[in-house]
C-alpha cells in the first residue's frame, strides 16, 4: 500500500439506510475507504454486504444517508455515473456476457474509456478503428496479467467456474478502476484457484494502486490481504478496524458464533 496516500479518503458512506418493503437490508451504516487500501466487508449471510456494494455502485438507492465519492457528496449513485467515475465491480453470482468470448467480455470493460461516436463505429474506420486497436492492446495486457491467453476466444459460457470469475475480474480491471468492488471473488473456488485470485487482487492493489473493497467469507484470506475490515450484521455495522482489532472484537465473535440477538 502506498503510504503517502494512506490518509486520503476515496469514498465515504454516511448513515446509509436501505430497506426493501419491510426488510431492513442496511441500517445507519457509515464507514470510509482510503485511497490505495484493501478494505474488506465481512459479516454473516444476509448481513447486507452485497447491498452495500450495490448502494456504492448505484444499483440500489438508499432511503437515507449520503455517499461521498472523490469529494462529491450525493444521496444516491447512478450506475453509469459510478462506472464513469472509476468504480468497477464483480458480482457474487457471476454476471458475464455468456454469449461473448473472453476477449469481448473484457473489451466491454473498456466501455467507459472509449468515446468515438456511432457514425465512425458503424463503419469502423478512422478514429474508431484506432481507438479499438488501442483498447485491444490494453485488454491484451489484462489477459496477460490474469494468465488467460488460452481462453481468449472461448465463449465464457463454456468456461469452468473458476476461470469465469477470473474473466469477470478482467472485465473490471479493463476499466482501469479507481475503486474496485469485489463481491466474494473466491467463493466456490479450490485452494489453488483461491491462491491465484488472492495474488491477482494483491498485485492489482500494489502495481496499479487500485483501491479495493472486498467481500469475502474466507477469513484467512481476509486477514491476510486486507488493510482494514468493516463488519456488518443484520444490516448494522458492528465493528471496524484492522484485521487484528476486528478479530479480537467481542461482538464480531458473537456474530460469527451465532449468539442470539434480541
Amino acid at each position, binding site marked *: 500500500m502506498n503510504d503517502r496516500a494512506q490518509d486520503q479518503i476515496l469514498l465515504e458512506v454516511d448513515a446509509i439506510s436501505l430497506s426493501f418493503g419491510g426488510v431492513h437490508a442496511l441500517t445507519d451504516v457509515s464507514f470510509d475507504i482510503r485511497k490505495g487500501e484493501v478494505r474488506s466487508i465481512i459479516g454473516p449471510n444476509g448481513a447486507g454486504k452485497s447491498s452495500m456494494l450495490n448502494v456504492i455502485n448505484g444499483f440500489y438507492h438508499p432511503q437515507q444517508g449520503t455517499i461521498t465519492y472523490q469529494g462529491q457528496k450525493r444521496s444516491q449513485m447512478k450506475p453509469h455515473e459510478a462506472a464513469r467515475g472509476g468504480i468497477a465491480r464483480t458480482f457474487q453470482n457471476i454476471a458475464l456476457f455468456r454469449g*461473448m468470448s473472453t476477449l469481448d467480455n473484457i473489451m*466491454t470493460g473498456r466501455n467507459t474509456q472509449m468515446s468515438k461516436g456511432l457514425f465512425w*463505429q458503424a463503419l469502423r474506420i478512422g478514429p474508431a478503428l484506432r481507438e479499438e486497436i488501442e483498447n485491444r492492446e490494453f485488454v491484451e495486457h489484462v489477459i496477460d496479467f490474469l494468465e488467460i491467453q488460452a481462453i481468449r476466444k472461448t465463449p465464457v459460457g463454456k468456461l469452468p467456474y473458476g476461470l469465469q470469475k477470473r474473466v469477470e475480474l478482467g472485465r473490471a480491471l479493463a476499466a482501469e478502476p479507481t475503486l474496485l468492488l469485489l463481491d466474494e471473488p473466491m467463493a466456490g473456488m479450490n485452494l489453488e484457484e483461491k491462491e491465484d485470485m488472492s495474488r491477482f487482487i494483491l498485485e492489482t492493489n500494489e502495481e496499479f494502486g487500485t483501491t479495493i473493497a472486498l467481500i469475502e467469507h474466507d477469513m484467512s484470506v481476509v486477514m491476510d490481504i486486507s488493510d482494514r475490515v468493516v463488519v456488518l450484521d443484520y444490516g448494522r455495522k458492528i465493528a471496524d478496524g484492522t484485521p487484528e482489532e476486528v478479530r479480537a472484537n467481542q461482538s464480531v465473535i458473537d456474530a460469527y458464533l451465532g449468539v442470539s440477538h434480541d
Partner: protein
Amino acid sequence: MAFDLFLLEVVISGLMTGVMYALVALGFVLIFKASGIFNFAQGVLALFAALALYDFLSEDGWFFSLFGFTLPVWLAIPATAAIMIFLAWIIERSVLRFLVKQDQIILFMATIGLAFVLEGLGDLLFGSDVKPLNIGIPQGASDWALDTFNLYIEKLEIVAAATAAVLVIILAIFFQKTRIGRALRAVADDHQAALSVGVSLDKIWVIVWSVSGIVALVAGIMWGSKSGVQFSLSLIALKALPVLILGGFTSVPGAIVGGLIIGVGEKVAEVYLGPYVGGALENWFAYMLALAFLLFRPQGLFGERIIERV
C-alpha cells in the same frame, strides 16, 4: 432446358422478395435481442420511412410546401435516416422508458399501439394514396443477365440484393467489432453487468431502435421502388413472423436465411403447386412452413431459446 431457366427465374425472384423479408426480420431481431421486445411496429417503421423519403423528394409533400424546394436523393436519404433516429429517440423517451420494468407482454402491446399510432400519423401527414418512389434505381430487366445467361432479372432486384448484402456486412462488423456493438450484445446478455461497465440502457435502446429504423428505411426504399409506397407495405411485417420462426428470434444469420427460404419457397410453391390447390398459395405458404417448424424445431434454424422471452 427452358424449363430449368424458368425455375431459375422463379427462384431468383423469390430470393429478391426474400431479401425484403430478411431486412424486416432483421429489424425485429435487433430489437428483440437487445431489449426482449417483440416489435410489432417494425413493418410500419418501414412504411413510415418510405413515406418520409417520398415527402422529401416530391413536390406534393410537406417539405416542398414548407420550403419551396425538394431535396436531391443523396440528401433525402440521410435526412430520412435522421428522422428515423429522431423517431427512435421519441419512442424511447415516451414509451420504453416508462415500461422498462414491465412484463414482456405489456411491451408487446405497447408496440402494437405504436404501430397504430404511426400508421395513423402517416395517413394523416402523407395521405393514403399509392406513391411512386423513384430514387434513380434503373428500371427494367438487366441486359447483362439476359445476354449472358438468357435470364430475365430486374435491375432493381439486383440493386436490392447488393444493398442488403452490404447492409448485413456492415451490421455484422458493427456488432462484432465495435464498442457499441459489444455494448448492444452485452445488454442483450445481462442488463446488470452491462450497467456495471457503464453502458447506459437508455442510449442503447435509442441506438437499437435507430438501427432498426435505418434497416426499415432500406426495406422501405426497396419495396417502395418496386411497388410504390402504400399501406400494404406494413403488411410485410406479418411475413416477418414466419421468417423469425424459421430463423430463430435471436439470430441475425437466421433472419437472413429464413427470409430467403420463405421468399423462394413461396414463389416456387405458387408456380408449381399453386395450380393444384387453387392459387394464392403465396399468401399462406409461409405460415404453413412456420407451423411445421413450430412442431419440429421450435427454436428455429439458428435460435437458442424462444420460449422464455416471448
